[in-house]
């Protein structure tokens, strides 16, 4: 899979700044690593957005990093698989690889199981 030259870096800012200030413990800082606009990458972005809208409304931030554009970040952030979702906050760091198609597994991976149920 070659990196697509037209890959766009997407950056989603927190949807609700007040929430971030009000409930810092539950604020989710998520970074999604993709490499070019591949079907898997696009699916992962869409899946993540949907999931956050449903389960983390108002207290999450999503940063999408296109490694095709910033290859140096791959080593820095220890990315091997694409797509990789990294939960930076709350600690500890969690990693979920794949297109995030299985919502249940993502929620478990993000330790959102209790919230989901």
């Amino acid at each position, binding site marked *: 899979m070659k990196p697509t030259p037209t890959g766009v870096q997407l950056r989603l800012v927190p949807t609700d700044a007040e929430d971030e200030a009000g409930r810092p413990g539950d604020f989710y800082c998520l970074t999604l690593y993709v490499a070019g606009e591949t079907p898997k990458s696009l699916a992962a972005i869409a899946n993540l957005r949907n999931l956050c809208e449903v389960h983390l409304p108002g207290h999450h931030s999503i940063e999408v990093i296109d490694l095709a554009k910033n290859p140096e970040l791959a080593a820095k952030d220890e990315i091997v698989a694409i797509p990789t979702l990294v939960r930076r906050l709350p600690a500890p760091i969690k990693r979920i*690889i794949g297109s995030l198609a*299985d919502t249940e597994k993502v929620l478990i991976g993000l330790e959102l199981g209790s919230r989901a149920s």
Partner: protein
Amino acid sequence: MSLNDVAPRPAEGQLAKSPTGIDGLDAILFGGLPSGRPTLIAGAAGCGKTLFGLTFLVNGAMRFDEPGVLMSFEERGEDLTTNVASLGYDLAALVAQKKLAIDYVRLERSEIAQSGDYDLEGLFVRLGYAIDQVGAKRVVLDTLEALFAGLGDGPEVRAELRRLFTWLKDRGVTAVITAERGREGQLTRSGLEEYVSDCVIGLDNRVEEQITTRRLRVIKYRGSAHGTNEYPFLIDQGGISVLPITSAGLEHSISDAIVPSGVAGIDAMLGQGGYYAGSSVLMSGSSGTGKTILSAQFIDAACERGERSIFFSFEEAPSQILRNLRSVGIDLARHVESGMLRFESARPSLFGLEMHLVLMMREIDRFKPTIVVVDPISAFRGSASEVDSTLLRLVDLLKVRGITALFTNLVGSHELDLTVTRLSSLMDTWIGLHDIEANGERNRGLYLLKSRGMSHSNQIREYLLTDRGVELVDPYIGAEGVLTGSARLSQEASERAAILHRQQAAARRRREFDSRQAAAERHIVDMRTALEVEAEELEASARQGEAEEAALEGGRMTIAARRGAA
């Protein structure tokens, strides 16, 4: 490491190769690893896979102007840097000079959850980025199988591995992939060999009779000839050395130059006044026959002439040899100080035979001596075939380098040992040192069993260990045969007595003759004197007669006158 090393250019139509820079390995690989293709190095834990990979990269960066990338799945970059610092590899400096990029890929399965399909594009991005950073021609993936541990052995990972090897070829990098050896029948634990089909090298670490020997074998090399045997290799402070068995043949050029033996008497016994340069000399003898001393004199003479020598000792420590040699008036310490002589001593049981050979050859190639002494070869223990093959290779390797070698061999006191007989065909000159036991004493005798290409003495020569080293005694050969020791001395004494006796008898006869001659001469003088006296008497009496006659005549005339007057 020489800066003059140049990667060999392949002939037209031949597979391009990337030299590893590892002594011996490039010879086995006929030049190096296949350029632009992946090579698999498989071996159990502790076989030196990582070091092979690193050496390939470091040599590439420092000697062949081929920067490299190390992608490590097992060790962090800092740990690697520390681990290989003892080998003189300064990874940090190479990284700073942009000749090497190190990327540590950490995969912690417990930290990774999976949801949906994924690929390993992140790995490709990292690798591609690192390659671009240094303009890498070489890539080492150590140990790629860690991917299976981190991500599971699923079809995604396998598909991605296949893609990775194609990708590496497309990038045109020469890649080395290390892998753990699998169970019986399996080269690697996770079957990586099915992806890498260009070149496969197996590493092995076997313990036989409590001696560990590392071995290497080129299992497969598509499109190229390669050495097929198992070759021993060594990892020490000098890095990796591989000793290819086939690196020596019988094609060495020979020399007519002569190397003196260091003992005038032996030189005289050898028709040409010494050994041929580059020949192999075997000196066999029972214990205490002075093998080490003769070796030392050989070296002493060589160092005097300004030739470099190495003394491989397998029974005595250098200091002990030096002390013992001083007692016979041979001072080798000064040659050690002046740098002409190197002592290398090791217990034979320290390594396997192969390893000894590797170490010796490496020392020889570093020091570049013209004279080598191995004292004694009988110290090598092992199966006869292994000892033979080791010595055969040692002899060949020395001959190829034109080094004159003296091997000592300890044998039983009377019969020629079996080993010696087997060895003799390898040797050009064979000197036997023997105890000659007779008349209640032991004397030492030296003789030449053979010396190829020169006429040589057939005598057994007695020799003495004096305070000036070994000295050959003039042989006593007489009606009684060849005698040695006190028998020779007593024979010589009795001969001296006989000669004296003969001399005395002759002198006596001479004196007798002289006195008889003197007596005769005296007699002659006496007779001559008597004759002279007689002659004088005769003359005197004659004169008297005349006088009397005259007187008579006068008387008569007087009487007549008187009568006339009357």
